[in-house]
């Protein structure tokens, strides 16, 4: 399908391929936290499994382990100590996977598929935050089957991010809700969406000087990202930009693709977006410029992640359903690629 449109090959950017990639589209991708000496990568997939690889210094990836759930995986998250992984599934549950013992135990449940899970590490507490299509956000002590806290969302959750002391949730019907995690989780405020189309991905960014979370980037299905500050000093600080819109080819019509994921570089504060068009781009939100755009792949990019020190950029390639189920080709392989990215993401010198 994408090939017919003149799209690129499976690895036009000459990046490193992760060994034994998932059998179906990657739905979640996370690098291990800095608490671990080595670098591990976990990926959740529509094939109901979560896989773990060790990423060696050479760039070699070694498959380490895998776990399965009853339904496709929608999100994964690391425990801050790096010993456990949380897996959210359409089977309405979240499981905790203890990597050391390779055992899983259910730690959260919703009344609908669980869209996101995030581990919250606060000075005075730790908990697991889960959001779901059942229009709730819940906070769990992982030892109890009852959530510590349960709040309603305006709509089904589509995306969420956590960076203590801030959490943000994007929902269907263009809802955004901010949470303050200080002391205990509490709704901070609901924000009017800067975008006009369905929310798809959200990522918190930090202030350059204070290193505290200060805003978020929100991506929509309309190939657009909004940079939004929680408390903008100047209303003009907030802006949106277009992306993942390849130049018009077919009959003068421009195809607009969804922004599937956004990730901020941990060291530079610049960001990466991956799109349904099959490309990734690096951006400097402060200079409001694009730092790099990739070659076009022959399938959508579904997820991306930076490792904790920002040396590695990982992105997942596979069909994202954006053209409906009839364009799903099960024979098409899924990939995860790794790329040395530290230089590419350096902000524009000012």
């Amino acid at each position, binding site marked *: 399908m994408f090939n017919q449109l003149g799209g690129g090959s499976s690895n036009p950017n000459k990046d490193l391929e992760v060994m034994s990639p998932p059998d179906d589209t990657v739905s979640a991708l996370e690098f291990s936290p800095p608490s671990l*000496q080595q670098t591990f990568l976990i990926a959740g997939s529509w094939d109901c499994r979560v896989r773990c690889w060790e990423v060696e210094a050479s760039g070699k990836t070694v498959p380490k382990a895998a776990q399965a759930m009853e339904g496709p995986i929608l999100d994964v998250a690391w425990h801050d100590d790096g010993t456990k992984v949380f897996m959210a599934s359409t089977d309405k549950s979240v499981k905790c996977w203890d990597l050391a013992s390779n055992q899983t135990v259910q730690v959260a449940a919703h009344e609908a*598929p669980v869209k996101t899970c995030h581990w919250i590490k606060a000075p*005075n507490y730790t908990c697991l935050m889960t959001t779901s299509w059942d229009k709730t956000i819940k906070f769990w002590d992982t030892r109890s089957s009852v959530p510590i806290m349960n709040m309603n969302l305006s709509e089904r959750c589509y995306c969420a991010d956590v960076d203590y002391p801030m959490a943000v949730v994007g929902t269907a019907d263009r809802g955004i809700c901010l949470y303050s995690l200080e002391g*205990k989780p509490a709704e901070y405020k609901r924000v009017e969406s800067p975008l006009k189309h369905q929310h798809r991905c959200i990522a918190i960014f930090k202030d350059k000087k204070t290193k505290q979370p200060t805003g978020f980037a929100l991506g929509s299905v309309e190939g657009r990202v909004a940079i939004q500050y929680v408390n903008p000093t100047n209303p003009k600080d907030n802006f949106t930009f277009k992306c993942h819109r390849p130049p018009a080819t077919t009959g003068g019509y421009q195809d607009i693709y969804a922004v599937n994921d956004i990730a901020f570089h941990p060291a530079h504060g610049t960001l990466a977006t991956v799109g349904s068009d099959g490309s990734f781009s690096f951006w400097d939100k402060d200079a409001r410029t694009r730092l790099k755009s990739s070659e076009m792949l022959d399938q959508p990019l579904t997820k991306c992640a930076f490792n904790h020190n920002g040396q590695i950029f990982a992105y997942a390639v596979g069909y994202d359903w954006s053209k409906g189920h009839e364009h799903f080709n099960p024979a098409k392989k899924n990939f995860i690629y790794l790329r040395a990215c530290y230089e590419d993401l350096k902000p524009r010198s000012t």
Partner: protein
Amino acid sequence: MGRKKKKASKPWCWYCNREFDDEKILIQHQKAKHFKCHICHKKLYTGPGLSIHCMQVHKEAIDKVPNSLPNRSNIEIEIYGMEGIPPEDVKEHEKQKSGGGKGSDSEDDEPAAKKKATTALLGPGPSTVSPGILPTPMGPAPPGMYHGHMPMNPMMPPFMQAHRMMMPGMRPLFPAVSMPPTSTSKPTFPAYSNATISAPPTTSTTSSSDPKENGEVKPPAANSCPLVTATGAGSKIIHPPEDVSVEEIRARNIKYRPKPKPDAPVPQPQPAPAMITPSTSQAEVWVAAHMNAAVAAARQQQAAAALRRGVLGGVVGVLPASMPRVPVSMPQMAPVMPMLPVMPQFNLVRQLQPGMLLPGGMGGMGGMGGMGGMGSMGGMMPMGAMFPGGVMMQPRYR
């Protein structure tokens, strides 16, 4: 026409909500903006006209009116100036105008949405409909009634059906059209399904899709389903027509339905926790609930630190420290299948060099990359073997 009655609302374009002083201008606008063929630039008179033109002349399927707002992109509804606008939308428009127009707020930078006149200010009088439209005293007409009002000839429906049927064979320039009718269940008269969405897209139409208790997210009822439509000129959002996340659409697919858990009760954490209000007592509960967690976390941090230093023999050494957080049910969940040696290299202390992944490091990538690991990975794949009968689920929620 519209301005003869001074109190009457201005003519407005159903496709983009823009208002005009004169219906003639409106018609010119529609011909230029919404009914122009993007291939030969011929100006047609109506949406169906454009659709027929493109189909017959260029063999192209047009599924949306160019430059139209989401929900107003229906190509099959015949609108000419103010004629043919669904009565519900007329009513809604009046309401918007009178009721302090929420919804015409945020402006996109797409050229089509650039100008939205929001000047009309009049009460919701019953006769504010411009003469072009047939008055409908009964308010929003039920679909059956609406039929009669359509200035459409009886031969239209068969054509539109034929038009639909031709779609799948066409080039998937507009893949949305080639969606089988299953997903959104488009009726023969899609006009109706869309016509009932009377709110402009900028006001958020509260979705009607309630997650069912069985967890399956139901597609919103067809007649209340907002659609994903580009606002810009000559652009097309690559997304299923329904304004629901692709994950939800995908999860509906039979292939991705969660496997039924044989005898495990559906985990329903009880009692249904109420909304937590920020009262002091609850805050105390919150803190108390976390005391233990904090202790455990501290232990884990120690363990992690040890791991970093490489002092401990490895993960096995970490395990006891992290045990307290693992529920008591752990022992019942002994691994069911012959696992590979668990994370054999987790304990290796290896420096992660900056500058890894540089091209030089690529040499070894080809095939040798952990074939052993791959093998064991493959061995783990048969998932049925991993979860015989939902054993994993039960312990916690029994």
